[in-house]
């Protein structure tokens, strides 16, 4: 089995899966009908991308693995998503800030991944770029609206950005698997995206009249399976059905 490639695909797919799961929690619970549908649409886009990644990963793994077994039957330590995307939906500002901070990265990543030497990854990236472009536009608009809105909305958005900032640097951490894949022209060296990322985010936060946090302390661990305390609850919710009724189908 191509272990490096398999692990690298999980890195890509797990971010989509967990970000999608968090947004999907708003299904029927969004602040308004319109934002509820918007968030679940984005969630479904991300699940679609996850499926493409995991079908590919299942092919590589063999041994009867399926997209479902990869998504639902791993243990917490085996998930490689960044800590950012597993943070909970405290309020709508928090949800939009988290998703925006991920979306900017996601689009930059896909724009590079479309030139991957691996034709499957390249195809997934090409298909996903349009979706990710809309996501960053939608969430960026909300960061601006709430940041440059009322005193209360500004405070909530600023708090969300302050809290989540500490998870941004992990996006650019290069794992051993990702490094090997980048050297082979299959993966993207995410460290090269860092400067553009912070430029884009800083410009939007300034437009939103928000203060860019100056903290130099950053959390990490997600990519190596060390997650925050929120991850277990998320997985319990997400995996319950497949664990309680193995192999069940709709």
């Amino acid at each position, binding site marked *: 089995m191509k272990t490096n490639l398999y692990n690298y695909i999980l890195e890509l797919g797990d971010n989509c899966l967990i970000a999608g799961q968090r947004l999907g929690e708003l299904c029927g619970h969004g602040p308004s009908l319109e934002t509820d549908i918007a968030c679940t649409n984005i969630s479904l886009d991300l699940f679609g991308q996850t499926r493409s990644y995991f079908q590919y990963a299942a092919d590589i793994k063999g041994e009867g693995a399926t997209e479902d077994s990869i998504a639902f039957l791993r243990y917490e330590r085996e998930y490689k998503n960044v800590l950012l995307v597993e943070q909970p939906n405290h309020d709508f500002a928090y949800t939009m800030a988290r998703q925006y901070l991920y979306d900017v990265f996601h689009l930059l990543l896909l724009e590079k991944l479309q030139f991957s030497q691996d034709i499957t990854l390249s195809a997934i990236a090409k298909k996903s770029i349009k979706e990710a472009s809309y996501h960053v536009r939608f969430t960026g608009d909300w960061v601006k*609206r709430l940041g440059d809105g009322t005193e209360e909305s500004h405070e909530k958005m600023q708090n969300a950005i302050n809290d989540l900032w500490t998870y941004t640097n992990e996006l650019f951490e290069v794992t051993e698997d990702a490094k090997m894949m980048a050297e082979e022209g299959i993966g993207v060296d995410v460290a090269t995206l860092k400067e553009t990322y912070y430029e884009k985010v800083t410009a939007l936060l300034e437009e939103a009249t928000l203060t860019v946090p100056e903290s130099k302390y950053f959390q990490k661990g997600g990519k190596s399976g060390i997650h925050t305390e929120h991850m277990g609850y998320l997985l319990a919710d997400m995996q319950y059905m497949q664990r309680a009724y193995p192999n069940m189908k709709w």
Partner: protein
Amino acid sequence: MNKNWPLWEIFVRSKNGLEHRHFGSLHAADAEMALENARDVYTRRSEGVSIWVVESKHITASNPEHNGELFEPAQDKIYRHPTFYDLPDDVKHM
């Protein structure tokens, strides 16, 4: 104070060459948000290629109480329909 966002009427063109049709209404803080919301609420199953949004308050509607004087006089004027012509077989979609 009204806590809801203003109401917008949504018009969607489902294919190039067809006209925009009224699809429904939704709430949004401004026109830009109305477009984004309309995209998610009404075109997520690829129903459209173009969207117009108009704030509902800008639509002037006829008063149903005046339906009698507005619309009934037309009912006995069947000669306003072109129904007295024999259509050639070659003419379709009439």
